[in-house]
């Protein structure tokens, strides 16, 4: 039996890597991917707690979270395309004006 703390530590490490990606990178597509890494880390924590408590509710929550992540990616990527057509750039530092 694998101790559940190992899973939680792995989830924490993945979450910190995702935060690092959002803070370090300037490409907005990579930033969106790092947000997905953070979402996946939280999902892993949910599933491991669901295994620890032997309750399937955590897995239901992860199902909803995956759906919301898919919707978020769709809207985020279409926003990225809109910004690209306006600014001709993928750099997050260039997007410093709130006006569309």
């Amino acid at each position: 039996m694998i101790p559940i703390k190992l899973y939680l530590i792995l989830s924490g490490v993945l979450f910190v890597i995702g935060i690092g990606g959002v803070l370090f990178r300037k490409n907005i597509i990579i930033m969106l991917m790092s947000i997905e890494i953070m979402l996946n880390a939280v999902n892993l924590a949910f599933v491991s707690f669901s295994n620890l408590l032997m309750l399937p509710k955590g897995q239901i929550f992860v199902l909803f979270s995956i759906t919301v992540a898919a919707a978020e990616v769709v809207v985020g990527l279409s926003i990225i395309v809109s910004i690209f057509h306006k600014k001709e750039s993928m750099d997050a530092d260039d997007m410093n004006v709130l006006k569309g």
Partner: protein
Amino acid sequence: MGLIIFLILGIMAVVTASGVVIEKRPVYSAIYFIVNLITLSLIYLTLHAEFLAVVQVLIYAGAVMVLFLFMIMIMPPVVENRFGKINLEKFIIIPLLLILLFEIIYVLYSGLTIDIGKNMPPLSFEKFGGIASLGQILFKRYLVPFEITSLILLVAVIGAVYLRRPDQ
């Protein structure tokens, strides 16, 4: 045996996630991310969440990553100044990230004191993460949130179409 498999999968997950962050070319980073997602689905299998493992591969590695790769390919290649213009950022961010990691691990090692199987009767392992048990709960107890999920998808579709409408 289970521990060795978990260690291999965990190291692979951390290495591929770092690859997403470190890699300079966006397509390579997306491929690293696909490997990371498949590794995570294998980790779900070791946690007896079989249905979620299948859903992870289908939705994330199948649908979401195809969308990402499509988007990367229709964009022209960008030259990225990877670590920002000011080097000061690095000296602030890295210690903060290390502190955050230390905090997470400390809290997990000192705060997690749940006793298994004291209060709740354990379910049988065969029925735990399969389609049958999850479907029973999803369509009985969580029916209303499930329907609201379809509303979220509808809003995402309408939003994506509205954002890319042709200019008047």
